[in-house]
């Protein structure tokens, strides 16, 4: 019985990993490098991302490309909550990893999107080359096949929400059960 479940799991994870459909979410300069990855010189369609969906209810990968500011943060959270499970997040660019070049003197940039949504892969550089974005997607595919993302997300979400309750500054309501 356990043999059946694990081999079905293996088939499902491989199917999920090799057909990731991203959402068109591009705020700033990293969005242009995402467009270069879609074009014909560095082709992302050979890794499974055949189309980029326009609506979040039909996508399963959120590549957050670009700076997130104070006004844009509720929009990002709403898009993340509209996506259906299982879903994955790549933080592309230095601005989303930890604030980037705006981390010293800016008054409206959020220093890293992992204050708002849980992140699977961090991809630094300003902006990352298309080859680097393809490398990030390959690493995400290996994580999915080994079943590491879903279990890690549960722990991450529980620890994240308990941090919220303790400190009391963040009032983001993240659910801790599926």
């Amino acid at each position, binding site marked *: 019985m356990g043999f059946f479940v694990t081999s079905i799991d293996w088939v499902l994870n491989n199917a999920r990993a090799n057909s990731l459909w991203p959402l068109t979410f591009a705020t700033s300069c990293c969005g*242009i*490098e995402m467009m270069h990855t879609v074009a014909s010189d560095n082709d992302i369609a050979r890794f499974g991302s055949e189309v980029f969906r326009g609506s979040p209810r039909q996508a399963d990968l959120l590549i957050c490309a670009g700076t997130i500011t104070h006004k844009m943060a509720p929009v990002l959270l709403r898009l993340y909550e509209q996506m259906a499970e299982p879903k994955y997040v790549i933080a592309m660019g230095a601005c989303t990893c930890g604030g980037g070049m705006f981390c010293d003197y800016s008054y409206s940039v959020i220093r890293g999107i992992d204050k708002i949504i849980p992140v699977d892969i961090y991809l630094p550089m300003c902006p990352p080359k298309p080859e680097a974005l393809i490398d990030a997607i390959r690493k995400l595919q290996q994580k999915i096949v080994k079943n590491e993302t879903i279990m890690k997300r549960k722990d991450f979400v529980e620890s994240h929400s308990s941090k919220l309750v303790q400190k009391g500054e963040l009032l983001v309501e993240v659910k801790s059960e599926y």
Partner: protein
Amino acid sequence: MITATTLKLNLGPQHPSTHGVLRLVLELNGEKILSCEPDVGYLHRGMEKMAEGMTYIQYLPTVDRIDYLAGCFYSELLCRTVEGVNDIVLSERVRAIRVVLLELNRIASHLLWIGAFLMDLGALSPFFYAMREREMILRYFEKLTGQRMMYNYFVFGGVRKDIAYLEDIEEIIKVLPQKIDDYEKIITDNPIFLKRTRGKGILELETALNYSVTGVNLRASGVNYDLRKSDKLYEGFDFMPVILKGKDSWSRYKARVLELRESLKIVEQGVNKLKENTNFDQKLINPLTLKLPEGEYYSEIEAPRGLASVYIKSTGEDKPYRLKWRTGSYYSVNLLRKLLVGEYLNDAIAIAGSLDIILPEVDK
């Protein structure tokens, strides 16, 4: 009794059109637009306030991010202001290097605009063709400076190092005119493209001057105003500003394609000048002890999207007291309040795309 009410539609910050995070709140009566109000600020990073805490050389790499498709223009603006204060005259070779790189940036920016505009209308093939040519230019920049989009190559007094690999530029000059002819064959006289852009989005002269429109949008309405003709950097280069009288979206498309060809001519003249003057000498300002004397300084340049200018007020220290950018896309977004009224919803995206808007220029 059947009564009709108007519908408030939100063309939200996230949509598959490639202009960035612009939000339009439209009021519709059926399919006709009654009023349009743009809502900006989703990418406001505080670049003007950041400058008051950094020295000039610390701020220079940040400036490339204001217009990510043509970052050289804003970098050149800041360098030009500082050089004007210290009365530095560039040598012939350094001037030719700057002009060649600026015009290559303009070509890359217009190529991406062609791809994105036609993707808004629903045609996907020209996007892939235009990106193929843009990759040639970006690979040359990566060989020369190490970066594909934000170069940080201009410094106060000159450039970081001498230009090289001129044979790659000659390859671009040889290959590109034939490719642009290929694009024009499938786009310019296409009956579907003509029906969607001819006679739509007409920009009259009085409206354009009232809403402070500059650049290609103004020249496609018949006004002869091109800042490159009176610019000291472009002295000795022979080109013609492109002026059309059509005033609609099709004229704006045709004006940008013609400007592409004129820019190629400028690049060719620049490469010939680089082969003649091989004497590379420049007088760099020491950036660690740079202080602008007390006063107010102003410079302007013709960027791909309109007139761009900078205003610096200094009190004698090594950081500016106030720094302000004037960009072209900011006023194009304001123009949408007037231009979209009375049009149908399907034409609205095409008209907004033909004005060439980029969001970091609006939100700074």
